[in-house]
């Protein structure tokens, strides 16, 4: 028995000749929040399907709470809440009927909690699922997922279709609260601003490969934006490795992925570089910088 709620090793998913996930490996400790980011088609959904035991990978293995996700899917689902990317409930069913149906499948079910959350979201129980907006469908899925007090919550792009208020509520009140209570959360999202406040670790997928898998604080501490007054840039790349370099105003700008205060001060005091300004980066900025850097071959 390990402390890992999720352990993915050597995961490979292929559709015909197309490699959707290429030897991905990651693990998520119990009680932590893992945010997986990546552009559309990067392989996030395929990875999530394998994670939920809905798809068997060509190679590799996924374990949830030390049990094989494919072979032990049914009992594992008692411990896992899922919000899928696409609203998958039958459109003809009312929200109440969906809740009633789900309640019969789980060992424990908090019907009052479902109703309270849906009231808070402003989703009527009598509405047919097919008539709800995309955001409301997500909210219904989330309310159902939370009704079993899951040990692991898997959210596949949960903010898709949510307005700003609902998105803020989801992240700060719901997920943040769950995270505080020790629920392990695995979330795929484009909304890096939203997850930045509570994500413990972040992974980034690109073209099926997991190109980044790191604690958020460590990631944020090693990435910096440095703006130089002069151009061209005279950066000692042996000391500070730029992920991205571009013109900025009259000078230039570099995103470095191994920022070190001491090294930078040494360069400045020795006059290697001219006037420069260092600023911290948000997760979103880092994600954009990495993605841009990959496109320009500076990864």
């Amino acid at each position, binding site marked *: 028995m390990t402390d890992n709620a999720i352990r993915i090793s050597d995961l490979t998913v292929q559709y015909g000749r197309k490699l959707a996930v290429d030897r991905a490996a990651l693990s998520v400790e119990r009680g932590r929040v893992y945010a997986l980011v990546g552009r559309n088609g990067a392989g996030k959904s395929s990875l999530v*399907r394998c994670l*939920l*035991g*809905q*798809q*068997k990978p060509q190679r590799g293995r996924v374990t949830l709470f030390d049990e094989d996700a494919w072979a032990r*899917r*049914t*009992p*594992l*689902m*008692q411990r896992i809440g*899922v919000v*899928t990317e*696409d609203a*998958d*409930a*039958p459109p*003809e*069913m009312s929200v109440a*009927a969906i809740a009633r*149906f*789900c309640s*019969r*499948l*789980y*060992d424990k079910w908090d019907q009052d909690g479902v109703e309270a959350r849906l009231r808070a979201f402003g989703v009527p129980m009598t509405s047919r699922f097919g008539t709800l907006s995309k955001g409301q469908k997500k909210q219904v899925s989330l309310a159902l997922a939370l009704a079993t007090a899951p040990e692991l919550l898997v959210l596949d792009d949960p903010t898709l279709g949510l307005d700003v208020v609902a998105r803020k509520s989801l992240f700060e009140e719901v997920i943040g609260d769950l995270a505080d209570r020790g629920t392990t959360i695995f979330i795929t999202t484009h909304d890096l601003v939203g997850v930045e406040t509570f994500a413990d670790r972040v992974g980034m997928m690109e073209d099926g490969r997991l190109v980044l898998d790191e604690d958020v604080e460590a990631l944020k501490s090693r990435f910096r934006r440095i703006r130089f007054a002069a151009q061209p840039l005279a950066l000692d790349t042996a000391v500070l490795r730029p992920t991205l370099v571009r013109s900025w105003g009259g000078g230039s700008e570099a995103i470095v992925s191994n920022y070190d205060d001491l090294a930078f001060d040494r360069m400045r005091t020795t006059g290697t570089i001219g006037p420069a300004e260092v600023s911290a980066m948000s997760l979103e900025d880092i994600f954009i910088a990495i993605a841009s850097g990959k496109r320009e071959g500076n990864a």
Partner: protein
Amino acid sequence: MKNALVIAAREFEEKRFVAYSAVAFALLPFLVGVIPMSHGRTPREGIVMLAVLLATGFTLGLSVITGASFVGRDLSDGRMSFYFSRPVGSVSIWFGKLIAGIILLVGCFGVIAGPARLVAGPWSPVLGVTFSQLTGVVLTLAVALFLIAHVIGTFSRSRSQLVAFDFAAAVLCGVAIRYLIVSLAGGQAMLLVKWLSISLAIALAAAIIAGGAWQLERGRTDRRRNHLALSQFLWGSMAVVLVLATAYVAWVVSARLSDLNGQLSATHSPSGPLAIVGGTAKARADYRTAFLINTETGDTTRLDSRAVWTAIYARDGRSVVVPRIEGNVAQLQIYRAGARDPVDTGLSLTAGEFFPSDDGGRIATFTSPRVLSVYEIATKRSLVSARIPGTRFGRAFFLTPDVVRVYNQMDDGLQILELDVRTHRLQQTGAIASATFIQIFLDPTAAHMLVRPARTDNLTLNDARTGMVIRQLSIGSPAGAMRFLRDGRIALVVGPHASPRLDILSSEGAVEKEIPLGPSNWTTFVGDDGDRVVLAVKRDRGDELLAVALNRGLVERREPIREWVRASAGMSDPRPAMEPLRDVLFTDAENHIIRWSPGSGAKKVITGGLASGD
């Protein structure tokens, strides 16, 4: 199980509008029932017939629509993850959906047809079929369509190229099943065909049902993997089932002569050693097979099971023409004593009759519309054809390999014709006027014949070519069976059933011997070997073969039989056999086929034995 029922309830709830539609359909016949009916139909009959039609159409249509969508649509719409995100197994998902679909079909049929059933009472709505039978047929068909539609729905909705493999596999299965059924049907095994068809249908249904659970377990939310899993399971299962079925059918059709033990039937060449024996075999239900047997050497050759009724022996007994029937076409093949393989004559018939020349070198056919043709087997050539006038019943034989003589029964008597192969001429050589059917019996040279109009004791000796009366024969009354012996003398059975006798007449008709036979209900000639005549007689205490010694004028030997195996050649060739009679075949009380030598009384079992229920 609990989860399966939860899913079934959900599926049923989702399709509750279908059930509402069924209620509306159930009411429709009663609304239409107020309209006056034509053709003397009562409103009740109109209600019932319309309800039956609606219930059948609705249920069958629903089975196709529901079957194609109950899993396939969730897969193609990406909604299967709704179930797979819950703690519910693939088997529960499948059986929940399956149970809901089948309950919906049965329920809708019941809702629409049920009220009509109450109204109908004992009246039968369709061709004497009861409501129970109709319900059984419609629901069986509906479930079959439902399952097949599921397979097609899964395959077609995956948009995978694998569908080409599925098509090929389905065609292969169809070809294999057809081959199995044709193999059994060739042995008239209608019962086995029925069992095989039902077994294969059950196996297919089981493969689809189990395959559905397998596809969801292996494919889960991925439509292509569902397709792949179902395809592998379905065709793999069917391959195993078909291999087993093929092994069983191969075992059935491999029945040997010694396995025959039921419904035995046989024919025997009048002169030679050839015989054909057919019947059902041990543990093979109603499958019939037939064998050509050389009674001299014991060699056997497997034949089409119908050969026992359709084969025609050549008069010399050294060859037999056997039709190999495929569909509506019979390919004529000739088997010769001593040769292992048959000779393909190149002739095929869809209707008509045929007979070989005495030596089996040529074949004549009577085909519609009354055309007589002669073929040469060695060259597979047609030698001559001619239209025979107004044939009602014809007896024909090769007088020589170049001349076919036809005794053509007309409304006003018997017409005698000869078709000459060399001159290509069909010539009428004579006629016998008679208002009734005429029996004829020819001497070995076909120069003379005995002529007796049916249901009379008026017997004349006639010229066999012209039909001219040579002399009136004086015989006892009532006259029974008669024929020329191989030495040219005449043998006939006369006298009442209580005291019949065998009269031997000279070729001119003078009585030479009168041999009492003992009481019999019916007597017929089997043949003669020069020293004795063999007769088959029916008696109250059981049937017998009698060997009558001609010189000693008494019944030399009696052999109790169950049934005599008739020896005949050609199209009821009216001439005696070419060779002396050596063996007679019969079935005994224990259902053996026995070869009996009338000269020595020796017997040998060829095949058979008691079969249960036989």
